[in-house]
């Protein structure tokens, strides 16, 4: 929602005053956060720090999707879980932590994997989606649904000593609309997935905690920015298509160098193209539909040649 104009409660005022006095937030921005619903898909190395700051900022409804349970090897980087909750569903563990931080938001746990059968139903209930997952099939699925449902997507990924972050489909624009400079979707930027042989997971390649942590916190920063500035609301008046557009879409790249102090190459912001006319998902001749996805078209597993038939987060 856009946010109403009610008064803030005393507790809200005490909690959020330090962020409300920041120029550009204010009472209106805080009410937009309170009236907004964010879906965090993945409660791991990205989702944990992202959720901490989204909850702290007072986003009103926070949904979390993850089918996994907490393992001891997660804890060096998944800072929303604790040793005493090993074996618990990650969504329940993380929500326990978030409730301690802030009791005011409504937390909605989805303790199962997201897939073509359930993605639209879940995502439709939120204003903004954060992709904190760890495999390409799920990333393409989430982006496709966000295009079809007109939701902005804050996407990040991290392996070993590298991290990436990009804001997609924001402000959201209906599928097929290409007569202007619109924001790209995941497929506009990353047309084809890598072959499974070249893909490195955090399990195989390892991960340095603060690297994935930086990306998760940055995701929260982008999400808060979008909601405070009401950029999550789909454009209605396409006669002025450029007016509410974000700056040039940008892929932020972070490289952690174990041998060097913070150097000039640690961060790089790469300018990306806008929506592509020939995009499979959002382009002018796209045949992608919610019904198609639910009935197995496209086949995300095949597209990404995943060996396993299940979508794992």
């Amino acid at each position, binding site marked *: 929602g856009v946010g109403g104009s009610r008064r803030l409660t005393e507790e809200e005022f005490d909690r959020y005053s330090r962020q409300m006095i920041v120029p550009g937030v204010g009472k209106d921005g805080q009410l937009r956060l309170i009236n907004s619903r964010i879906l965090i898909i*993945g409660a*791991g*190395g*990205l*989702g944990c720090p992202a959720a901490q700051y989204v909850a702290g900022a007072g986003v009103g409804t926070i949904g979390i999707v993850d089918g996994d349970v907490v393992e001891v090897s997660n804890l060096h980087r998944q800072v929303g879980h604790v040793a005493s909750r090993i074996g618990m569903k990650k969504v329940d563990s993380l929500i326990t932590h978030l409730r301690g931080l802030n009791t005011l938001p409504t937390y909605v746990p989805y303790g199962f994997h997201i897939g073509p059968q359930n993605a639209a139903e879940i995502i439709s209930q939120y204003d903004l989606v954060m992709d*904190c*997952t*760890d*495999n*390409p099939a799920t*990333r393409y699925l989430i982006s496709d649904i966000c295009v079809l449902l007109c939701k902005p997507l804050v996407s*990040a*990924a*991290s*392996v*070993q000593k*590298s*991290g*990436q972050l990009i804001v997609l489909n924001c402000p959201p624009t209906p599928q097929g609309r290409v007569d202007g400079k619109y924001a790209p979707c995941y497929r506009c*930027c*990353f*047309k*084809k*997935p*890598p*072959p499974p*042989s*070249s*893909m*490195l*997971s*955090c399990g195989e*390649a390892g*991960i340095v905690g603060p690297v*994935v942590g930086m990306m998760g916190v940055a995701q929260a920063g982008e999400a808060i920015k979008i909601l405070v500035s009401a950029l999550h609301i789909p454009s209605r008046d396409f006669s002025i298509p450029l007016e509410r557009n974000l700056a040039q879409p940008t*892929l932020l*790249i972070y*490289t952690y*160098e174990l041998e060097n102090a913070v150097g000039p*190459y640690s961060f*790089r912001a*790469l*300018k*990306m*193209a806008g929506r*592509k006319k020939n995009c499979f998902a959002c382009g002018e001749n796209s045949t992608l539909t919610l019904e198609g996805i639910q009935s197995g078209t496209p086949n995300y597993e095949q597209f990404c040649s995943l060996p396993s038939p299940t979508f794992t987060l």
Partner: protein
Amino acid sequence: MADSTEVPIRESETPTISITVDFYGGLDTLFGKGQHKLAIPAADKSGSPSTIGFLVTHLCETKMNDPRTDLFVLDGHIRPGILVLINEADWELEGEEAYEIQSGDNVVFVSTLHGG
């Protein structure tokens, strides 16, 4: 194939083009860190101006520290899942592998990450 390091060039040698190349997302471990300043041949063996397609093969043959060339090139083309930017612009807008490299160009290769 001509030397791709900054060796002084004699008149008789193949003319070269000076460019910079960056690798991210794990590709830096295949090629070494930081920005690479390269002098690449101005033309391929057939005499055609050097393209991004040529650069990819050239990098693979002369610059890779790692035997796993399939992490960068598959079937003679850049492998899927690697983003290429030419002077900060998506290479799709520039003609992809057919783009003719100009002196001073900056080419960025980014391997898409999926972990979280």
